[in-house]
């Protein structure tokens, strides 16, 4: 059947709405980041910036020195960027490593309570972060982990582990067990099989878990607001601070926001190539 004109129109309208919905705010952020500060108060607002400036980026990157509350903006920004990267990367590595081992155990090892334990771990996904924030804060204070990389990364790991575990278990379950049995007969032990067969073939799954964890950690606001007040403050917490009592620095907010968007986008683009499936082709019919 040839799609009717109306049908095609509906599809195009749908696509357009989706694009505007998801790309609109990103466009607005990036466009604003090139708008001179004075233009923000001009009415009516324009869809395309009337003048272009790199001033906001210059301030962020330390080409022009600007200060907020006596601290140079670019130093704050640089520190927050490093903090965001360090905590997100650390959380991603830890989370993927731990959940890979855990998911493999849940898939292939027989131990009592295996099913119950798995359900319990995954069920923690349903617990909202704010419900555990206060007790968690007390724990972290006692462990002296507030405002440390280790503390924040561990919280992220505990938050994203269940999802990653769940994802990787279904990835491992889909791997043909005959491969592992063949390796067993060839003389390989459990860990050798895990590292040299299973992980080699689970690349796309591991990548997906890494992307999910990285994006989740990168976008955290509530947790670092409480657990990373100073030394480990990430971008998400820093950016709103560009709103001061007398002045909302839209330029700085949108410029730093743009950079905060670009980094995860680059990570996803880079990892995307490992998401390709078809690695198993030819091993088992």
């Amino acid at each position: 059947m040839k799609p009717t004109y109306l049908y095609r129109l509906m599809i195009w309208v749908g696509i357009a709405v989706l694009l505007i919905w998801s790309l609109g705010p990103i466009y607005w952020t990036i466009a604003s980041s090139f708008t001179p500060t004075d233009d923000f108060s001009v009415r009516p607002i324009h869809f395309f910036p009337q003048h272009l400036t790199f001033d906001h980026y210059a301030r962020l990157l330390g080409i022009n020195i600007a200060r907020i509350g006596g601290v140079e903006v670019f130093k704050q920004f640089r520190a927050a960027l490093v903090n965001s990267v360090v905590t997100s990367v650390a959380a991603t590595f830890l989370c993927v490593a731990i959940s890979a081992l855990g998911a493999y155990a849940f898939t292939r090892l027989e131990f009592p309570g295996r099913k119950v334990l798995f359900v319990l771990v995954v069920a923690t996904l349903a617990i909202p972060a704010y419900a555990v924030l206060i007790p968690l804060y007390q724990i972290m204070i006692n462990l002296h982990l507030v405002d440390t990389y280790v503390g924040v990364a561990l919280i992220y790991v505990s938050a994203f582990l269940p999802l990653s575990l769940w994802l990787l278990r279904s990835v491992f379950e889909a791997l043909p067990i005959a491969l592992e049995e063949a390796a067993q007969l060839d003389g390989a032990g459990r860990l050798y099989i895990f590292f040299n067969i299973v992980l080699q073939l689970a690349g796309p799954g591991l990548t997906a878990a890494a992307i999910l964890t990285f994006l989740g950690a990168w976008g955290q606001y509530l947790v670092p607001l409480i657990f990373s007040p100073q030394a480990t403050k990430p971008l998400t917490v820093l950016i709103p601070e560009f709103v001061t009592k007398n002045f909302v620095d839209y330029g700085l907010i949108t410029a730093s926001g743009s950079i905060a968007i670009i980094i995860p986008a680059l990570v996803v683009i880079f990892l995307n190539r490992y998401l390709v499936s078809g690695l198993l082709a030819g091993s088992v019919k």
Partner: protein
Amino acid sequence: MASVSVTNARKSYGNFEVLHGVDIDIQDGEFVILVGPSGCGKSTLLRMIAGLEDISAGGISIGSRLVNNVPPKERDIAMVFQSYALYPHLTVEANMGFSLKLAKASKEEITRRVREAAQILGLEHLLQRYPRNLSGGQRQRVAMGRAIVRNPQVFLFDEPLSNLDAQLRVQMRSEIKQLHQRLKTTTIYVTHDQVEAMTMADKIVVMRDGFVEQIGAPLDLYDRPANLFVASFIGSPGMNLIRGEICTTGPLTFIAEGGFELPLPPEATVTHGAKVVYGIRPEHITIGQGSVSTQVVLIEPTGAETQVTTKVGPQQLIVTVRDRVDIHSGDPIAIAPDVSKLHLFDKATGKRLT
């Protein structure tokens, strides 16, 4: 090389017993085939020998060693899986050398032994390829290569040819057999295909529903099936099996359920009135003369021989003839079973009577 003995082996999954006490003795260097319909427990038994499934009861020995509690990698066996199970991220060479690498063999030795095996199987030009770039038959060969390289005590094969097309299957059948004649390694081979079993095995183990029905050389099973199951399972086209009973008085004859009579050999040791199954292979019936009048239903020439399906009362009988015959479906035709090749089974137990 080693002998393998399975003694009263049982396997249960929970309360569900799938092997009910299996006894098999396999001589050093023998090529043994486990055959039976799908789900009868062949793979389970093979995997128990490999150590991939534990043994619920009974014992399995390789050589003189009881291996019930020996982990797979210490059993010195190699297995070829139905799915081939090649490591997709490794080249053919690395696939074949995987076990030697794990055994910490030197690089030179690994290379030498992989080349040797590759040469035997004609894989030399494929060593640098990845499994995804091989055809089904080549993958099958690599899977065998991986087993050969190890020079194990026992080869285990689980339906290795079932993913190949018919022509390749026939070719690989003879290659595997030749390989065995060359290496003389004890081999246990699982298949559901009785033709494969007949053509390749030194000894066939016929299984059904977790029991061993009969063990013997291919032609022994063909000539003297121990029971109705083996009689119907071995041979293609299958043995004609006709239910009925021995006449109650007078000279011994067989009266089929459809009411017609079939001849018995004079020396038959059956009692009057016994309920039996009369078995005769298609090639042991001659057509054109004889005491049984039938009607031709179907003619299927295969070239070398012709398969004629005839009908007596409600019963169909298949006859194979070597000569070209000029008959047509619907024709009446007389047939004569060769009573010296007759098989009689007890109808109640299915056991062979003579």
